[in-house]
């Protein structure tokens, strides 16, 4: 039996960034494919309307590619992208000045399982999103980066230009307030 051909390892984000800087458009497309859903999840949880999601994701990537020369690898590309997404969302919200909530019925439509469980889960998510909206931006973003994206405090701190200790404090404040609101 012939030995299986080694599977080519997927290029790292850093390699794709370098390729994009060298003019490879497909490298940019691959970075979008790799991170678009995670970014969309973050933006949606942070308050983006689903109707605006595609535009916000695009704008975030455009802004990131424009300033990719400033990215020094202080954190992962994904984390850096999420913080840019936070800025894009803030700018969009300032422009639109309108309430940003994912309608509850969309969440319910997308969930599987028992209708009653779906309704309860949807209601809980809706309440959490409502509570998140009330948090200061930094607390909201730290909470989402930690609880939703599963990032370490070190990574969050590097992306937000703060210390891991401060990131931890923001997270705990956010959790405390969310629990109070959700009670």
């Amino acid at each position: 039996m012939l030995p299986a051909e080694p599977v080519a390892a997927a290029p790292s984000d850093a390699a794709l960034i370098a390729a994009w800087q060298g003019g490879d458009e497909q490298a940019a497309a691959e970075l979008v494919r790799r991170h678009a859903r995670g970014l969309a999840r973050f933006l949606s949880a942070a308050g983006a309307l689903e109707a605006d999601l595609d535009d916000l994701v695009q704008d975030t990537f455009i802004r990131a590619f424009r300033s990719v020369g400033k990215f020094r690898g202080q954190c992962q590309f994904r984390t850096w992208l999420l913080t840019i997404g936070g800025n894009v969302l803030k700018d969009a919200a300032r422009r639109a000045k309108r309430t940003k909530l994912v309608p509850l019925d969309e969440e319910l439509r997308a969930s599987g399982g028992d209708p009653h469980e779906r309704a309860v889960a949807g209601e809980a998510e809706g309440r959490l999103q409502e509570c998140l909206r009330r948090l200061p931006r930094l607390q909201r973003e730290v909470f989402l980066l930690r609880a939703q994206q599963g990032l370490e405090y070190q990574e969050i701190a590097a992306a937000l230009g703060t210390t891991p200790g401060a990131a931890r404090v923001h997270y705990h404040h956010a959790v405390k307030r969310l629990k109070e609101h959700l009670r």
Partner: protein
Amino acid sequence: MNDDAMLQDAKLRELAHRLGAAAAERLDVERTAGAVVERLRTERRAEPRTWVQPAWLRIAAVAILLLGGGLVTRALVRQPTSGSALVIPLGEDLMDLTAEQLQEALGSLDQAPSEENLVDTGFEGLTAEELRAVLRTLEG
């Protein structure tokens, strides 16, 4: 941390993890990637023009400054200075001046005549030719 608090934390994390998942799943990633690449392509095409424009503007600004500076310098050079010009008080009889003084006056003014100077300036603003004409008139 007690069990209840841990359970609450775990529940919160689970909820947070689910937030936006459905909306993200519905995102057409291929279409988004295509749109981003197209926008980047458009920006790259527009880039050279964006960079050339300020360069041309800078060149134009330098040209305007040089031209303006040249005109100002020319105007200053053309203006008779108090050190080299002989001031002739109005009403004073030019016949009282010596030939040497008159020659000095003519020698210090060797610019071309100008219509405007004749209209709105005094003797100090007159060109050599105009002064000569004035002197000739006064000499009879």
